[in-house]
């Protein structure tokens, strides 16, 4: 099976696992996780197999997909995943530094970029190999701190730094292309700050992969056009699913949809 088809298969399983976990929690942040599943799958399958590479989930509210993948990789046990957000467990809605496979405590938006820049720069100072990868939500690009980090990364010519932006066009409250028109274009903002910039379909493994084949000349950003809630029709682009978990009936419908998906 080629990489593209294998990714589709894995991501379908991940989505189902997340839906099933949602039975245990009323605010699972399903939709923001569904929008970046293919990106996270790509990052782990392609990069985090090497020890020197580091991945920071700056959009910490989507950590559930990270836990699912870490569970697949054996770093987080089934028992721990079952205790997600429970008093005796270690996994919460937002990632916590020290949890196996978690490189930063995030959750408050606008922090991951700076941490990633610090790590990438330290790698240069200490002559360490490897890349630092950071996944940001598009809403996080409204934080001034993100742009402080973007500027510093370019100043320091960090060609070992790669940002992914999960551009699902929604912050928690509303669609940004409607409420914050000056937010776009994103790519030109990054390129004017001195970044190598790409735009891809964030649900397509091959398109993401193609950007990676290009040599890193400076900090690289891959702006991934995505659909919030991708994979379940009634969740797609509907703001309430930023937080909400489905009821029993909705869950059955959602699982069926994923099964029937080609």
């Amino acid at each position: 099976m080629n990489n593209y088809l294998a990714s589709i298969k894995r991501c379908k399983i991940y989505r189902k696992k997340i839906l099933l976990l949602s039975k245990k929690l009323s605010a699972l942040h399903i939709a923001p996780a569904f929008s970046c599943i293919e990106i996270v799958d790509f990052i782990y399958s392609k990069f985090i197999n090497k020890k020197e590479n580091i991945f920071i989930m700056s959009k910490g509210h989507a950590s559930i997909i990270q836990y699912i993948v870490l569970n697949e990789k054996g770093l987080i046990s089934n028992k721990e995943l079952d205790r997600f957000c429970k008093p005796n467990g270690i996994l919460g809605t937002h990632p916590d530094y020290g949890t196996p496979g978690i490189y930063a405590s995030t959750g408050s938006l606008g922090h991951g970029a700076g941490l990633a820049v610090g790590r990438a720069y330290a790698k240069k100072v200490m002559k360490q190999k490897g890349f630092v990868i950071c996944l940001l939500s598009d809403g996080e690009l409204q934080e001034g701190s993100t742009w402080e980090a973007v500027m510093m990364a370019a100043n320091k010519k960090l060609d070992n730094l790669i940002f992914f932006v999960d551009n699902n066009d929604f912050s928690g409250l509303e669609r940004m292309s409607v409420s914050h028109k000056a937010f776009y274009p994103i790519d030109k903002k990054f390129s004017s700050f001195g970044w190598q910039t790409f735009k891809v379909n964030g649900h397509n493994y091959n398109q993401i992969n193609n950007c990676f084949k290009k040599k890193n000349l400076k900090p690289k950003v891959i702006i991934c056009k995505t659909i919030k809630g991708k994979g379940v029709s009634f969740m797609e682009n509907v703001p309430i699913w930023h937080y909400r978990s489905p009821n029993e009936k909705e869950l059955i419908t959602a699982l069926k949809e994923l099964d029937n998906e080609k």
Partner: protein
Amino acid sequence: MRNKFADVFFEESKKNKKLGLVVADISPAGSIEKFRKSFPKRFINTGVAEQIMIGMCAGMAQQGMRMVAYTIATFSLYRPFEFVRDDICYQNLPITIVGIGGGVTYSTLGATHHAQEDISIATSLPNMQVICPADPLETEAATKWCLKKSKKPTYLRLGKAGEYNFTKISNEKWSFGKIRLIKKGKNIAILSVGTVIKIAFDIINKSKNNLKDSSVYSFSTIKPFDTKTLKKIFKNYKRIIVIEESSGSGTVSSQLKAFAQEQRYFGKINTFNLKDEFIHVYGSHDDILKSHELTFKKIIRKIK
């Protein structure tokens, strides 16, 4: 103090290749300039951008470096507060945040540059250690400890330049987490926090009554709070005076009063702090302290 910090930092940086400094557009004083020239990669200026100063420090520390964030106290702690809290304290990284010009040191710059509440804010943060040296000598010892020994986040509050070395007469070595006896006396215990130790020495040098024969302690580590030494002080003195250039709930004054209550200390306690006000006054450092009623004369009058 600033220069002493810089000297120690430069010396340590020659021995430890993982030591780095991130500043936010502050002109490097004294030996920091030498550090910058000798090790340009380990000196990072983020420009007028404090959130990335803290974020980068945290990321670099996670990657194995020993990091220091350095700028004026208001900008090292207040402006990037949530980054200090989440990136450094929540992740419990051994980073030193240096706040230059703590208190009202920047006396002509107005309240935007006054760090009156820095101790209160810093002590409120879980995992944060808080050190406020009295003079250049204590700065030297504290800086060495921060760069070599500390395993947790530390807020190191420094003054500016030209402070007199009041603690040189002490028989006790500076030690992290410990109240330090500087001059032994009999009558009252004067606990001073930071550079206002000069007021404590004014009290014993200039007063004509039995205040002359008082003990002066430097309360340089505010968090963790040295309750062990305090218990001894409660036992040995019937009167305690606290002098500190800060206001708010986490200060030595407020912590000491609460602890005294808990320990059923029945002696007298007088505390002298900055007022809980933005004072629109300019002039010398002493002028601003005067408008906060933090002077030798005012204190003498109040404790008669």
